[in-house]
């Protein structure tokens, strides 16, 4: 009987340990789509308020890259507001993250207007623009589609565009694609995991 208790107890301990291991060392499940490419993300060079800015300038930081435009009526301000809340959630770790918005409206957005727009959400955000060709190439390389169409007299033309956010790790590799509407707490959790 004593022997049975010892064996049963041992099996129970082993099972508990296995469950604990599975729980504590289980792979982190991101809230977005993970990319496993060993190649560096496309290294664009676009125009900021202080001159050319390249993705490679931010090696060592996690970059959240978003394509939008300042006349955008809905999706862009909502995304920028979510990213601003994400930065608040990150607290001290916010300094390890750089949010960049690339304008898909180079006809109306200048480096100054994009910068001013993004910094109304968070002063650390950067806004970039470029020529039509530079923007088209950069957007395509990040899986972004955009298309200009008629709006109203009040809005002028509008631009439909992919609303995903691209997350590039400290080594310059695209690691994560977050969908529009991902809650800021989830974005912050993913970014913290990448920072750590």
């Amino acid at each position, binding site marked *: 009987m004593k022997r049975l208790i010892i064996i049963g107890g041992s099996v129970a301990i*082993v099972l508990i*340990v296995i469950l604990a291991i599975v729980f504590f060392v289980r792979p982190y499940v991101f809230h977005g789509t*993970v990319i496993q490419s060993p190649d560096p993300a496309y290294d664009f060079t676009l125009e900021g308020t202080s001159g050319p800015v390249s993705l490679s300038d931010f090696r060592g930081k996690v970059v959240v890259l978003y394509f939008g435009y300042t006349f955008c009526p809905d999706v862009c301000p909502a995304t920028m507001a979510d990213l601003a809340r994400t930065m608040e959630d990150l607290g001290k770790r916010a300094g390890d993250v750089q949010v960049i918005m690339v304008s898909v409206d180079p006809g109306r957005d200048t480096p100054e207007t994009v910068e001013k727009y993004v910094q109304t959400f968070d002063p650390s955000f950067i806004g970039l623009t470029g020529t039509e060709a530079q923007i*088209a190439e950069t957007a*395509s*390389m*990040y*899986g*972004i589609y955009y298309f200009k169409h008629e709006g109203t007299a009040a809005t002028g033309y509008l631009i439909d565009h992919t609303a995903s956010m691209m997350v590039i790790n400290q080594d310059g590799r695209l690691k994560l694609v977050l969908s529009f509407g991902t809650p800021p707490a989830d974005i912050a959790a993913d970014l913290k995991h990448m920072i750590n």
Partner: protein
Amino acid sequence: MRRRILIAVLVLVVAAPLAFAIFQPIQVLPRIRLAPGFSLIDQDGNRVTSEDMRGSFVLYDFTYSQCPEPCANLDATMRQVQDRVGEIDLGDVPLRLVTISFDPERDTQEVLLEKAQAVGADPAVWQFATVENPSLLKTIIGGGFEDYYAQNEDGSFTFDPKFVLVDGWGTIRGEYQYRSSVPEADRIIRHIGVLSDEVQKSTGAASVAYEAAHLFLCYAK
């Protein structure tokens, strides 16, 4: 006794991941990189964009209709995949096939329509298209899909015949070099099945197991 339990636990800690990596109880396809953003015009004159492809599995190939013989017969593989779609449990995710021409000057809408009809393409599944903005051709095919092509002096093209499988989130999950001697359609169909399995089963607690499969590179052959 304590020592034995400790050894057993240590063996399990090492053996469990090792067993997962060796026996691969779950197989997945790698998440290679993002497919490019694009806007194409198909054989019926409709605009087809990368956004339209979201939510579908898409198999792409890249060629041109004036390709002189002997030319890589990519259409035969695409046709096989089209005809054998019923073999795969796709769940709620449709499969689409897109043949992109890198010769927009000669592959006009009419030429593409003729080509689609000649190879028996079901327009609901398989579209023939070329890019809407030719200046982005190299970016989309060469840069995004990483398929090499170059035009020769005589107007023909030297190109790398290949197929690219993209999931519903716009991530490239498979790249297949065309080889005339290999029945590539079998592998592609099997891989679409693996992808579909992941989409259907990778929910809740099972998503951790699928993440482990990615972590241990349990990739389908």
